[in-house]
């Protein structure tokens, strides 16, 4: 292309500016280095840890209130060394995992049924909504009467607690399924179950995963409730004992473990999001 003489171009540009034209301002999302995101993410927890260490070192935080980070690390070594920590962790994780599995599965199935079929919604939804408002902590005495001081009582409590968030998210996600897509699949001869599998569940996955996130958090909370009341092993038992001997270092260890469990649950869901929804990754950030 022949470009006009430079001085003419400049004159044109000046004329355009004189006519009140402006350079368009674009909001551009710059790609950020991954390392920066990781650093920013770890900054918050590190600041908390630093504040704790500082408060302990200056004497603002005495040992009878909360042990210092160094003492807590020592306690971890001690508990790890005599095997108490691994035992307690194993027992607690099994309880939380089993409860979560049963609870989330129940919530998922009920959610799909009420979200996808009108009969299911009319029949089940109001009953579940009533049950949902019962605080699960109120069930502890009842479960003790029913199951005694057994593993079943604890797993059942966690299951009940975790099923409701999963149910609410699932039925909501399923209800938002693209009706046109369902119609199209029906025209290709897919049955009900096949439609649920190929269209409804994949479409509801974001809602399912946010439900799972809530359920995982709640499973840890229910675990604490179940273990605090009556148990002879597990992290809750460890805590109850530490409380008796005023061992704030062990108490801090247990609290940190609960926190780490929550963090791990979050990471698990993030990984699941990536694994289960590869089609989302393909779209993200790809400008037309």
């Amino acid at each position: 292309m022949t470009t006009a003489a430079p001085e003419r171009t400049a004159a044109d540009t000046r004329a355009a500016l004189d006519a009140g034209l402006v350079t368009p301002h674009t909001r551009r999302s710059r790609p950020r280095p991954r390392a920066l995101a990781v650093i920013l993410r770890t900054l918050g927890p590190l600041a908390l840890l630093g504040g704790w260490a500082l408060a302990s070192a200056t004497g603002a935080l005495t040992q009878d209130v909360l042990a210092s980070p160094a003492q807590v690390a020592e306690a971890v070594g001690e508990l790890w060394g005599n095997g108490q920590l691994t035992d307690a962790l194993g027992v607690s994780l099994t309880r939380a995992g089993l409860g979560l599995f049963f609870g989330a599965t129940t919530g998922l199935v009920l959610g799909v049924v009420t979200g996808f079929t009108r009969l299911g919604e009319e029949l089940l939804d109001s009953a579940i909504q009533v049950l949902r408002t019962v605080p699960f902590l109120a069930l502890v005495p009842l479960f003790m009467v029913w199951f005694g001081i057994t593993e079943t009582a604890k797993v059942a409590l966690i299951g009940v607690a975790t099923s409701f968030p999963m149910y609410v998210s699932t039925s909501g996600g399923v209800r938002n399924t693209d009706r046109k897509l369902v119609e199209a699949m029906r025209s290709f001869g897919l049955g009900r179950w096949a439609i649920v599998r190929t269209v409804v569940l994949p479409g509801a996955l974001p809602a399912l995963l946010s439900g799972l996130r809530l359920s995982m958090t709640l499973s840890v909370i229910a675990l604490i409730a179940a273990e605090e009341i009556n148990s002879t092993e597990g992290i809750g038992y460890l805590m109850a004992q530490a409380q008796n001997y005023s061992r704030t270092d062990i108490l801090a260890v247990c609290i940190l473990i609960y926190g780490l469990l929550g963090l791990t649950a979050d990471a698990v869901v993030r990984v699941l999001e990536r694994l289960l929804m590869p089609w989302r990754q393909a779209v993200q950030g790809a400008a037309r």
Partner: protein
Amino acid sequence: MTVTSTTVTSTATTPAVHLRGLRRVFGTRAVLDGVDLSIARGEFVALLGASGTGKTTLLRILGALDQADEGTVLVPPVRTVVFQEPRLVPSKRVLANVTVGLPRGAATRETGLEALAEVGLEKHADAWPATLSGGEAQRVAIARALVREPQLLLLDEPFAALDALTRLRMQDLVGDLVRRHRPAVLLVTHDVEEAVRLADRVAVLRDGLLVRDEPVTVDHPRDPADPAFADLRRRLLADLGVH
């Protein structure tokens, strides 16, 4: 590649778009590689190109939705875009979609209703976007673009998703509306006939450059049977690689 600068016959007129040496690179590929384009105030320019030639990218740069890597880009402060899809907010009624982002008030409501009346949808002001047909939704999108009284109207293949009959009707509607409001218009399309029917000037984008930029001299009303129409159409198709 030499292009005669028959383009700006009216250097005296006030410009609405001023592009010089515009470059936009995706990865290693320069989609726009030194494009020069001027559009005068009130002028209707159609930009043709095969898919993937960067015509939408050019439009997005003018609409501040994308950024130029190099070159001078000057546009008027008030610009609006009509996209290929209507892009209406599903949770807002039709009138609220037209006046979205404008200051609230009785006057805004009035101008919104007027704009809807212009596209023949004043009766649908309280309808939800999901209840409209494709053509109706696109008419709402046009009303939304015009209610802001833009100095530059950017049309990104606005008729591509419509059926053939609706498309013809919509082209007439847009032609009418543009004649009445006189914004500068850049219509991006791959429909040669549409370009010749509506535009004052047609440009063809190929390999990152404007390989043609010439005024449409066919008399109004433009009839595809007119030999001048057919001749221009043939030349444009040749530019696009269709013979």
